[in-house]
């Protein structure tokens, strides 16, 4: 097991050297008190997420751990090159798949996988988004297994969340441990909202005149990520709108203001494709904007991320990502994919059936851990039951080995203790550049030995430090 502070064999790794010097001088009790202070800080700022159905506790905090996750500048440079390559390929893939579909003709990705995929939107065929950008904002989930090995777990290219935690975690650390930041040079993340606004404004439709008007579309105050929507709009200096604030006026999407209707050029939407336009997609959607797809097709608004990007982070497509990178960039993928067995293929299915107790089996279109088998944690009976489901419809499943995720220490009552982590860096794409904020959201499984980092299942977050060297 690889620990990012102590390596494989309890020898302090270089990126943590200065932090180690500092924490040796600190008292555990005092640090635990600081952790309580951090919680109060988060509550006051209102960085909470809503939980449906429970009246009293309907605003919860995601636990924050005060020990930073530290990544060297060198490691980061390597990572960000890989991420940039991947995001470029994904954008090229999306353009291709909604236009000439060269990659299907070349037989690199099976056509069946696209045509039968719910995440593929026929309404986007032939539509060119302003500036050719599909994935304006994405959050690539990365895990580490050793000194050298990083794997991409998921490419979140729909509406990834968590960036407000990246920013507020840093803010909290700056307030609580200012002395640490004068000892250790950490690259700043605070330019993210400004960069995001610039990046979105650079994707404005050609028909837009004057300074681009940017707005953030939220499902509303009861959405679990509402805090983040409001936070980003505030930090970008953009209006935070809901569907009922918008309508089509003179061929533009316009928001109802105190001075009448005002046209919007770029809409950063935090609602799913399906709810975007009741006239085109789900007719029952109350949170979308009727007619927005017509305005979009007429080239009068930029929707970020573009509708239909979900086809690129589909689990079935994921396994082809190394080929996709190679096809569009001509280079081998710098970041590794987790080896994935497509149960649709006969040899793979045989292997998966023989090794169920060691594999993680996922539904191709599932998310959030539903309909999943975690082999090493499952009972014989569960495995037998899953086997039947798998045989019944093998095309619906992929399988992956369980990865030994790296650990990073967290602060407990008894002092530092290792816990498993993942990392979600945030990537901004505009026609001319791809920008990766040096840092990201580190999610940490707070339970000893647990590999589940999801906040809905008891995971927490950490500040992520990229050393400035």
């Amino acid at each position: 097991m690889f620990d990012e502070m102590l390596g494989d064999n309890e020898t302090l790794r270089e990126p943590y050297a200065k932090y180690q010097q500092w924490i040796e001088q600190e008292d555990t009790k005092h640090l635990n008190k600081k952790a309580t202070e951090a919680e109060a800080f988060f509550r006051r700022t209102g960085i909470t997420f809503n939980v449906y159905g429970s009246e009293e506790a309907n605003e919860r905090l995601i636990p924050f751990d005060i020990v930073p996750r530290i990544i060297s500048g060198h490691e980061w440079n390597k990572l960000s090159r890989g991420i940039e390559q991947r995001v470029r390929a994904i954008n090229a893939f999306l353009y291709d798949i909604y236009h000439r579909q060269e990659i299907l003709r070349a037989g690199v990705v099976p056509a069946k996988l696209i045509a039968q995929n719910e995440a593929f939107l026929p309404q986007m065929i032939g539509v060119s988004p302003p500036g050719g950008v599909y994935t304006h904002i994405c959050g690539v989930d990365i895990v580490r297994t050793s000194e050298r090995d990083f794997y991409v777990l998921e490419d979140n290219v729909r509406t990834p969340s968590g960036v407000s935690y990246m920013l507020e975690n840093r803010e909290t650390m700056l307030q609580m441990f200012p002395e640490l930041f004068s000892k250790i040079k950490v690259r700043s993340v605070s330019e993210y909202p400004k960069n995001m606004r610039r990046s979105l404004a650079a994707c404005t439709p050609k028909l837009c005149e004057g300074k681009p008007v940017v707005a953030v579309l939220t499902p509303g105050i009861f959405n679990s990520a509402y805090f983040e929507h409001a936070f980003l709009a505030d930090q970008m200096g953009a209006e935070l709108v809901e569907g009922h604030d918008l309508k089509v006026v003179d061929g533009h999407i316009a928001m109802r203001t105190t001075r009448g209707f005002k046209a919007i050029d770029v809409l950063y939407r935090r609602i799913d494709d399906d709810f975007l336009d009741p006239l085109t997609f789900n007719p029952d959607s109350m949170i979308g904007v009727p007619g927005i797809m017509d305005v979009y097709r007429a080239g009068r608004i930029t929707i970020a991320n573009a509708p239909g990007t979900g086809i690129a982070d589909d689990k079935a497509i994921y396994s082809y990502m190394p080929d996709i990178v190679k096809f569009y960039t001509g280079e081998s993928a710098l970041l590794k994919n987790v080896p994935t067995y497509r149960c649709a293929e006969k040899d793979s299915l045989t292997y998966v059936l023989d090794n169920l107790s060691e594999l993680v089996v996922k539904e191709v279109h599932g998310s959030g851990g539903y309909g999943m088998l975690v082999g090493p944690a499952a009972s014989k009976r569960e495995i037998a039951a899953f086997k039947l489901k798998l045989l019944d419809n093998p095309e619906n499943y992929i399988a992956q080995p369980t990865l030994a995720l790296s650990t990073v220490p967290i602060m407990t009552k008894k002092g530092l203790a290792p816990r498993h982590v993942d990392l979600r860096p945030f990537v901004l794409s505009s026609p001319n550049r791809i920008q990766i904020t040096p840092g990201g959201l580190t999610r940490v499984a707070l339970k000893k030995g647990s590999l589940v980092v999801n906040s809905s299942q008891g995971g927490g977050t950490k500040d992520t430090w990229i050393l400035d060297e």
Partner: protein
Amino acid sequence: MLGKTAAGLYWMFRYLERSENTARMLDAGFRIALTRSTAAEDEWVSVLASAGSHNSYIEQYDQIDAPSVINFLLREKNNPSSVMSMVETARNNARLVRTALTREVWEATNECWMTMKDLLAHPIHEKELPAVLRSIRQQSALVRGALHGTMLRNDSYDFARIGTFLERADNTARILDVKYYVLLPSAQHVGTSIDNVQWETILLSVSGRSAYHWLYEGETNPVSIANFLILDRQMPRSFAFCFTKLAETLGYLGEDYNIEHPCQLKAEAMLKNLKQKTINDIIDQGLHEFIQDFISENQKIASMIEEDFRFYG
């Protein structure tokens, strides 16, 4: 600015103002109950009526006593006019308009809500009441301070102020509406101790007791109290003061937006009317009618504002 955001700011500050005023009325009622036990029940009825909560109280309780009234007005979940409910509504509006507030204003509002939730988690015993009320006053002062100290003087600030002054004018009018009769000149009561108590409560309910004595040099009489609350432009809770601010703020918005809305003209007309009147005119024409008329005009101007600035559609 979005119409929805303007509405959110306006309601956020209406609710904050109203919760603070409810706390103030409770304070006055409690003081009377402590010092004049015979007048206590009447006083609680007045407090409930001024807070617009008398009917909903009667639906839930059989009798009027201090602990029930205090808890009903401070923390009853089923009472949308309890301090806790109103602070919660104010904070929900603040969440809605988070982008129009500075971080300081948002945090002060959020802390106000957290403090209230904590303080009002359990029934309030009489002996805790003064400390609780003090804390409510302090928390709302912090929000107001953050507003004044950190917000740009733009339309966000204007809508917050409009909500504040409309609500405050309405609250003062309601206190007077319930108690107007004690201010009517009547040979029978003048100088009796009952009246003095009532006069004092009115002044306490608007946090104006010492200001009044300062201005009117210790001479308490009903006509000058009515003048103080209605026409005195130095008194920050009087009709005239609130309308000066309201007309001024609507004027800033008009200038900013380069349009003179009907609500602005209406506010200016109402202010002009207040400036031209003396307190004796008002009493001669009927104090009660004047107050009721003011309350209904106040509601009209509120709907005009909602329409002129496209709050809801």
